[in-house]
């Protein structure tokens, strides 16, 4: 049975510092042996996950940092795949990071049961570059977003994961007006010393979630409409990726692209000069580096059923291609075919790992 508690945000505190005090307490008391949490880098220009064992090293941490340079699921995979660490490690993850971790768990790249997932409510993140630019310009990223919501990454504005879908402990900030943080867990040791959640706090969070879901759905519809108009047919696809430099960084930063060696970086795509000359003669010209469309569409065919729409691909693109927009659009059309939603639950079997005798076409 999950228990709901509350952390009050006192004077001079923020939800971040209040929640952090509780997490620090868990580390100090030994209920957690380690904590993987976003930590300010370069004086807060960006935040990266750091594995902390010394409570005093948490000073610059922020569980609600509005920036996600790397999807945390990647780090959870690094932490647990080879051999999960002994002891209880808390990992602070936003819902899209949890979604990716759920997929990686099913792909045997993460051992979700071996970490304590601390899920946080996420109002969205700013791209690393924008975050750095804001800080460098002397602005506070959070208030900048409050003024200009369009600063959020598109993946966040069209996020499917408003509700934390899996957690061992939840840090809920939605509907609190910054006055408290709701803590939900089935594990009493993670709730030590906290007051019972007052009536209405959970309901307020729930209604805020519904409001945000509504806004995000509407934004998704608007973005899909743009895809319907522009990202269609060979010309549309070619135009979308025309500035691609084939660096494969979208694949590198994709949390669910886990292959040790990507097929598209294999020797399959290294050719003798004469072979390329043959293609150049046949077509009149050959784009270099080769296999741009093959990489994007092939990668899509390989992983779009597990795409959780975090948009790391877009953030990682050095030439500003909205890779995630295309992948999310296609994912939302491929996954329903298998009655699947990547990142939803550890209990849904991977679409490629199962089948039904009586389904799909041809029969």
């Amino acid at each position: 049975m999950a228990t709901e508690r509350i952390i009050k945000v006192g004077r001079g505190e923020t939800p971040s510092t209040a929640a952090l005090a509780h997490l620090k307490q868990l580390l100090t008391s030994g209920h957690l042996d380690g904590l993987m949490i976003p930590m300010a880098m370069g004086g807060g220009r960006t935040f990266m996950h750091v594995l902390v064992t010394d409570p005093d090293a948490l000073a610059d941490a922020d569980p609600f940092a509005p920036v996600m340079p790397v999807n945390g699921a990647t780090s959870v995979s690094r932490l647990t795949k080879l051999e999960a660490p002994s002891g209880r490690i808390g990992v602070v993850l936003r819902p899209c990071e949890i979604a990716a971790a759920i997929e990686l768990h099913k792909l045997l790249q993460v051992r979700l049961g071996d970490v304590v997932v601390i899920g946080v409510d996420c109002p969205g993140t700013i791209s690393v570059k924008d975050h750095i630019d804001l800080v460098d310009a002397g602005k506070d990223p959070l208030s900048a977003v409050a003024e200009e919501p369009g600063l959020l990454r598109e993946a966040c504005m069209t996020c499917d994961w408003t509700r934390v879908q899996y957690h061992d402990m939840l840090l809920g900030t939605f509907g609190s007006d910054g006055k408290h943080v709701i803590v939900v867990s089935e594990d009493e040791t993670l709730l030590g010393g906290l007051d019972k959640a007052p009536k209405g706090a959970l309901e307020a969070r729930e209604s805020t979630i519904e409001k945000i879901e509504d806004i995000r759905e509407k934004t998704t519809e608007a973005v899909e409409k743009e895809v319907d108009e522009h990202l269609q047919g060979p010309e549309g696809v070619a135009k979308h990726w025309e500035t691609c430099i084939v660096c494969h960084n979208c694949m590198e930063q994709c949390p669910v692209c886990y292959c040790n060696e990507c097929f598209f970086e294999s020797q399959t795509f290294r050719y003798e000069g004469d072979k390329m000359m043959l293609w150049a003669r046949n077509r009149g010209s050959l784009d270099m580096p080769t296999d741009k469309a093959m990489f994007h569409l092939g990668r899509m065919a390989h992983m779009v059923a597990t795409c959780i729409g975090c948009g790391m691909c877009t953030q990682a693109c050095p030439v500003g291609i909205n890779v995630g927009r295309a992948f999310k659009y296609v994912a939302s059309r491929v996954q329903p075919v298998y009655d699947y939603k990547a990142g939803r639950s550890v209990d849904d079997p991977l679409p490629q790992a199962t089948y039904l005798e009586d389904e799909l076409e041809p029969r």
Partner: protein
Amino acid sequence: MTDKDRKGEGKAAAGDDFEPVIVGFFCNWCTASAADLAGTSRMQYPPNVRPIRVMCTGSVDTSFVLRALLEGADGVLVGGCHPGDCHYVTGNYRARRRLTGVIKILEALALDPERFRFEWISASEGAKFAKVVTDFTEDIKRMGPSPLKEL
């Protein structure tokens, strides 16, 4: 085939003289034998298919289909064993899941999904093989050269 012969292959505009290039991935245990049967039975079908024998449709990676289309094929035909008949028990079911994904991707981005076809053709169905190849070739001829090879 020399470079010169290859040049212009499948490049002609839609019309009577357009001869499409179709890449076929045929399961060793069924469709490949059906193709043999159609041949030895002297059934007529268009010669546009370039057959590639695979040990199971379950071994046809989604990227094979896409690569064929991007590298010059006007159509891709995958032929496998009927449900329940897979030599490896479940290969064709898995292929159906995976390859349906390719069709959905092509549909979502309006990349001529009709250029890809997946059929069950058992070793005894020489006539079905000839019919499928004939129908598919005609459909592709009607559609004209694939714009995907320009990607």
